[in-house]
C-alpha cells in the first residue's frame, strides 16, 4: 500500500525541514520526504497550499473510559482526536476504576486497538487509588504499557510521596506529569481569584495555589534528578519558576492548553459553565505570560486537557458544575489562529510543540517524518475558515466556550500508520 502526499509545505521540526516536499508512505511507514517524488501510488493526496506535518500528539486528554462512558468513550474520544488532526493521544488515569493497576491499563490498550481511530498511550497513576498515599506498582504499570505517571485531576499533595515517586519512577524512565495545585490554597474556589471573581461573587483560586506546587516540584526534581512535566501551566509565576529552573538545568518541562493561551477570566462573565476549568482561566497578565513562554520555549508542549462532560452535568449552577472543557477538535485551529496567524510562533515552533517535543518527553517513537518512522501525518489548510459548531463534534462532550467562534487554519487530513482516518473533516470508517 503506497500513499503519496504531493506538493505540500512539509514542516518537520525534528529534522529541521520546512519546504515544499513530497512524502512517500509505504505499508504504514514513512519511506522518504523529497522534492518531486515521481512514483505510482495507490493513493495520492494533493497538498498544495497545505502544511504537511508529523502526526500531532495530544499528551493530555481524558477519554473517560472505563467508568464514565456517558461522557466519552475510547471510540468517541479517538474519533474526536482524528477530527482534530491528532494521530496519538495520551490519556489520563482518572477513570473509574483509576488506572493504578495492570488490568485497567490493559483494558484501555485493548479497547484502543479494537475501536480507536488513533493511537492511545495510557498514563498510570502515581499512587494507589489516586489517594496520594502509596505508590502504585510502577514496574508492572510500565510493563503494561504506560508512558508516564500522574494523578491528574489531583496533585500528589504529600511532598515525601512525590519525592519517592520521582526516585522510583526513574528506574523505569517514566516521567511524572504533575497537576500542580495546593488544595488548601484552592479552598473551594471556582475561578481565578481577581477582579472578575470579586464582581461575579465566585470564590477565587489564587495563582499562588498553582505556583507553590510548581515550586515544590521543581525543588523535588532537582533533589531526585528525575524529570517532572508540569501539566496545564496557567500562571505568570509558574512560568517564571519553570524558566529559572530550566536555566539551572533542572529536568522540567511544561504544557499549556489552547484555552489558557486564548481566554481570560473575563470569559466567565455570564456564568457559562463551559468556562469552568481547572486550573481556571486566568487574568490577561497571566495569559500574556503564557504566550511569552510559548514563544521563548519555556513551554514546549501544547496539550488540550480534553475533558468531556455530559450536557446535563454542565447545565447547573456554576459552583456545582464539573471542571473541564473539550479541546481535541478546536486545538489546532486555535493554535493557528491565536499563535501562528498572530506571529507569536512560526509554524515550525508551533508544530514542534505538538510533535517532537511531547514525543521526547514521553520517549515515544513518534513526532517525526524520518524515514522508517510510523507514517503518522497531519495536514492543515492554513487558510480554511470555519465556525466552531459543537453539534458536529465527534466527541460526546459538547462543553466548549468556543461555540460560534470563527477560526482560520483547520486540519484537513489525519493519517495514522499510513491510513487516512480523517479527510476534509470527515472520519473515514
Amino acid at each position, binding site marked *: 500500500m503506497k500513499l503519496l502526499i504531493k506538493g505540500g509545505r512539509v514542516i518537520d521540526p525534528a529534522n529541521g525541514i520546512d519546504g515544499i516536499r513530497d512524502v512517500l508512505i509505504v505499508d504504514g511507514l514513512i519511506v522518504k520526504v523529497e522534492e518531486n517524488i515521481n512514483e505510482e501510488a495507490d493513493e495520492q493526496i494533493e497538498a498544495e497550499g497545505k502544511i504537511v506535518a508529523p502526526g500531532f500528539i495530544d499528551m493530555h486528554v481524558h477519554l473517560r473510559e472505563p467508568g464514565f462512558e456517558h461522557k466519552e468513550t475510547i471510540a468517541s474520544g479517538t474519533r474526536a482526536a482524528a477530527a482534530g488532526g491528532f494521530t496519538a493521544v495520551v490519556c489520563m488515569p482518572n477513570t473509574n476504576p483509576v488506572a493504578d493497576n495492570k488490568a485497567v491499563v490493559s483494558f484501555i490498550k485493548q479497547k484502543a486497538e479494537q475501536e480507536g481511530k488513533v493511537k492511545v498511550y495510557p498514563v498510570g497513576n502515581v499512587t494507589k487509588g489516586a489517594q496520594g498515599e502509596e505508590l502504585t506498582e510502577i514496574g508492572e504499570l510500565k510493563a503494561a504499557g504506560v508512558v508516564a505517571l500522574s494523578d491528574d485531576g489531583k496533585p500528589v499533595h504529600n511532598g515525601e510521596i512525590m519525592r519517592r515517586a520521582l526516585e522510583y519512577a526513574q528506574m523505569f524512565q517514566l516521567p511524572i506529569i504533575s497537576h500542580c495545585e495546593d488544595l488548601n490554597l484552592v479552598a473551594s474556589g471556582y475561578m481565578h*481569584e*481577581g477582579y472578575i471573581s*470579586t*464582581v*461575579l*461573587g465566585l470564590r477565587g483560586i489564587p495563582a499562588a495555589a498553582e505556583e507553590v506546587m510548581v515550586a515544590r516540584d521543581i525543588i523535588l526534581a532537582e533533589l531526585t534528578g528525575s524529570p517532572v512535566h508540569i501539566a496545564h501551566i496557567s500562571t505568570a509565576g509558574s512560568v517564571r519558576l519553570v524558566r529559572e529552573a530550566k536555566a539551572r538545568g533542572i529536568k522540567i518541562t511544561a504544557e499549556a492548553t489552547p484555552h489558557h493561551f486564548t481566554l481570560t477570566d473575563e470569559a466567565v462573565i455570564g*456564568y457559562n459553565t463551559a468556562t469552568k476549568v481547572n486550573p481556571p482561566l486566568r487574568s490577561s497578565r497571566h495569559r500574556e505570560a503564557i504566550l511569552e513562554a510559548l514563544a521563548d520555549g519555556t513551554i514546549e508542549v501544547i496539550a488540550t486537557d480534553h475533558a468531556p462532560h455530559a450536557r446535563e452535568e454542565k447545565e*447547573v*449552577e456554576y*459552583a456545582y458544575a464539573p471542571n473541564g472543557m473539550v479541546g481535541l477538535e478546536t486545538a489546532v485551529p486555535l493554535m493557528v489562529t491565536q499563535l501562528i496567524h498572530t506571529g507569536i510562533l512560526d509554524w515550525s515552533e508551533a508544530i514542534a510543540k505538538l510533535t517532537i517535543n511531547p514525543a521526547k518527553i514521553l520517549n515515544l517513537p513518534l513526532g517525526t517524518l524520518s524515514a522508517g518512522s510510523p507514517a503518522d501525518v497531519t495536514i492543515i489548510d492554513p487558510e480554511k475558515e470555519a465556525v466552531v459548531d459543537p453539534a458536529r463534534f465527534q466527541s460526546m462532550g459538547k462543553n466548549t466556550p468556543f461555540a460560534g467562534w470563527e477560526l482560520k487554519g483547520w486540519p484537513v487530513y489525519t493519517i495514522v500508520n499510513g491510513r487516512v482516518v480523517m479527510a476534509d473533516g470527515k472520519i473515514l470508517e
Partner: protein
Amino acid sequence: MWKRKDLLGLKELSADEINLILDTAVPMKDIIKREIKKVPTLRGRSMVTLFYEPSTRTRTSFEIAAKYLSADTSSLTVATSSVVKGETLIDTGKTIEVMGADVIVIRHEAAGAPHLLAQRIKSRVINAGDGMHEHPTQGLLDMFTIREKKGKLADLKIAILGDILHSRVARSNIWGLTKFGAKVRVVGPSTLLPKEVQRMGVEVFQSAEEALKDVDVINVLRVQRERQKKGLLPSLREYSNLYGLDRKRLALAKPDALVMHPGPMNRGVEIMPDVYDSLHSVVDEQVTNGVAVRMAILYLLMGGKNVNEVVN
C-alpha cells in the same frame, strides 16, 4: 419604561432604570401606610418564591409586597436533599413555570443561579440573593432609604463596614450607589476584602476609624461565626474590638449620619445595642422600604405602566 425580563443585579441596570424603580416605590410606600393595604393591580398574577437558602425575612417581604398588589403567592423552600436527589435548578424552574408562575423570586447559595434560571425559562426572574454575587432588591431598598432620608445620593459619603468579601449586599450597594455619584468606601479586615475591589469604584480602608470619618451613611454588614473556622478571623471578639460599630466610632461620622444594617444583626458583635437603638438607626425603615421597593419591582416586571393607576 421598564424593558427587562428579569431583575438579576444592579451592575447591569442604568441609573434611569434604578430611578424608575425608586420613583415607583414612593407611591407604593403610601399604599403600605394606608389602613386598607391592598390594590387590585396584579390580580390574577402569580409570584412563586423559590428559596434554596432559608431567609424568612426576604421571602416574607416579597410575599407581603405581592399580596398588597393582589397577586397570588406561593413559596417553595428547597432543601439541599432534593438537590442531592438530582432534581436540577432548571427542572424545578420549568416545573414552576408550567404551573403558571409569572414571576419567580429566587434565593440561592450559588452565584449566577438566577441567571441560569432566567436564561432557561420564560417566567420573569427576580434575584433575591445569589451567593456572594448580588442582592439587588436589598441594594435598591438601601438606596431608597438613603435617598428618602438625605434627599439625594450624589456626593454622599457612604461607608460599607464589615465582611465585604462574602457580601452580595455590598456588591449591589456599590454598583447602585456609584452610578449616582455617591462616594463609597468599603472597610473591613484585609482577609474579608475581595481582590481588586477598588476597581469597582470604591475607596478601600482597613481601619474603621479612618473609613468612618465624616461619612453620611454607615452600612453595617453581618459577620458570620464560620469565618473564624476558615482562618479569615481570629475571633469575633477581636473583630468586634476592631470593627464593631459603637458610640465612639459612630461619633467620627457626620452628626446626622444614618446607620443601616441588612439584618439579621449580631448585636454586640458588628453593632452595639445602643447604636442600634439610637436615632441614627434606620434599620426598621429599611424593612418597610423593602416591601415598597419589592412592590415597585413586581409592578414594573409584570407590565405596570402608569403608577397613578395604582395609587388612585
